[in-house]
């Protein structure tokens, strides 16, 4: 395989890694800065987040996801992640690269617990967000509520959604249904709750309100993250009259801040 071919495969794998808070691919968000390969089957992925403060647990899930997805490629011996310009970037990268846990980095701050519960919470939100897009598209294409609540998986699989974004989300929704074993057989309900329970016509409006609130939260974060990411690294609109562009972030870290309590002035 050519180097270009290898890189293309890696980027395709990276497309499968989601920002857990946003349920959007880290590649779409512009988080992945660079990918290199070496002769021993090693892959190095450098990534940066919108701020120095981005929640360490979200960052850790993404770092793990990158390593996991890239290492699924048969020719990759080892993938290494490098989180840059983050308050805990060096420690987290080291932990992920050595197969460690989140609690290895932040043992005192996590009471030794891992990220299982958090991961489950984000799976739920991803499910809800994807389902809302699919349902809204189906409603726009004329499906009645009664048809939606009883729709079998096989039918949803066959339907073509005309909106391209919805079509994309439908595939991702179907993937999640299967991965979480929410709907597996062709006759299983395609649009149940996350727990697999059937929706009802009477409860449909409330269910949609719930999905909407999940989306509002995720859009807030997504919108901020995109803006912050864009502006953090100076991709400002050129010619903005007289604006002093921001400095690049130094990648050095001066260690933990001093602990002394003091007051201002």
């Amino acid at each position: 395989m050519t180097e270009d071919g290898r890189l293309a495969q890696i980027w395709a794998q990276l497309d499968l890694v989601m920002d857990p808070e946003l349920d959007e691919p880290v590649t779409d968000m512009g988080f992945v800065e660079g990918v290199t390969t070496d002769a021993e089957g090693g892959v190095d992925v450098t990534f940066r987040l919108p701020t120095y403060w981005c929640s360490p647990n979200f960052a850790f899930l993404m770092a793990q996801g990158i390593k996991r997805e890239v290492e699924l490629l048969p020719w990759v011996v080892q993938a290494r992640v490098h989180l840059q310009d983050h308050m805990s970037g060096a420690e987290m990268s080291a932990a992920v690269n050595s197969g460690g846990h989140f609690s290895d980095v932040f043992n005192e701050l996590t009471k030794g617990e891992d990220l299982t519960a958090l991961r489950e919470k984000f799976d739920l939100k991803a499910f809800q967000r994807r389902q809302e897009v699919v349902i809204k598209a189906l409603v726009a294409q004329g499906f009645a509520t009664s048809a939606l609540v009883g729709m079998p998986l096989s039918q949803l699989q066959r339907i073509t959604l005309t909106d391209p974004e919805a079509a994309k989300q439908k595939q991702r929704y179907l993937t999640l249904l299967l991965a979480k074993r929410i709907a597996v057989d062709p006759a299983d309900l395609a649009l149940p709750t996350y727990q697999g329970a059937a929706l009802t016509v009477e409860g449909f409006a409330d269910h949609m309100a719930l999905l909407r609130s999940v989306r509002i939260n995720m859009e807030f974060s997504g919108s901020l993250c995109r803006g912050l990411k864009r502006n953090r690294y100076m991709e400002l609109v050129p010619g903005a009259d007289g604006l002093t562009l921001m400095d690049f972030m130094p990648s050095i870290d001066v260690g933990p801040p001093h602990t002394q309590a003091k007051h201002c002035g």
Partner: protein
Amino acid sequence: MFITPEGKEIFVVDGHTHFWDGSPENQANIHGKQFIDCFYAYHTGLSPKEELWEKSKFEKYTPDNLYNDLFIDGPDDIAIFQTTALNDFYKTGFGCIKRTTEIAKKYPNRFIVNGTFDPRHGEKALEWIHFMKETYDIKGVKVYTAEWNGASKGFKLNDPDAYRCFELCDKLGIKNIHVHKGPTIIPLNKDAFDVHDVDYAATDFQNLNWIVEHCGLPRLDDFCWIATQETNVYAGLAVAMPFIHSRPRYFGEVMAELLFWIGPEKILFGSDYAIWTPKWLVEKFWAYQIPADISAERAGVQLTDEIKEKILGLNAARLYNIDIAARKAEFAMQPMSIAAE
């Protein structure tokens, strides 16, 4: 004062403003630089192009800039200073109650200065609250739960140390607790934006008003649930406001949720100056209507003129016992050239 196109005077209380020093000279370490850089990215990310500031001005602006942007150029009648200390990141603090008090003294009745404390300082925090009450007669505080303190990367409102501070606030009549939920809570393996500690604190301290900044976003649903149950929980609109420009439909969805769940009496305007300036925010807000389809999904709620007036000033005036008629009369007598002194 904001004057509507029909000529009506709207009294504006800006519930969230800062006077900070984020300049390189005041930065104690890389974290201080990263913090102001992050604020600047918020500013550049969500402001209209014609409202952008240069970085150096953003890092450190003058009291004249502040007065002008809020009261001369801007529509504010009264602004509430929220002190964000960040003593681990800045040599003399990012915000500082002493510095803001000096400005407030220069412009009588224009500013309400809120203090801040860090419950992790234990006894010292209690002494500090006493000091702030005696020295500055504060009516409120801002607590920033994501603030670092040595090895600690944040705290919860229902931590025992925090409760001791709130007990003291209650006793001293420091009634308004502005809560800023940042992206870090303990334990660090849990949802970083969780707002449920507000629920505990608001239940246990019924005499205090809990104003949750950026209305709990990105956990708006949890926030609405809590604020619907707890009569003493309010939504501060700082950071949500600028979406009115960049994503107006989205802003409508947030406002529809808030109006539907918690109602128009418990929502407070805040510009988060100097991240954003109040002039364009208030102008756009007054001209804004929630899109019909979004409103229809939430029982037809709408931002009427009456509701906007509450959000822009009346609600905060109630929490801070502001005598609007007296202040209006007083400000009308002030020559506007005061800023040039």
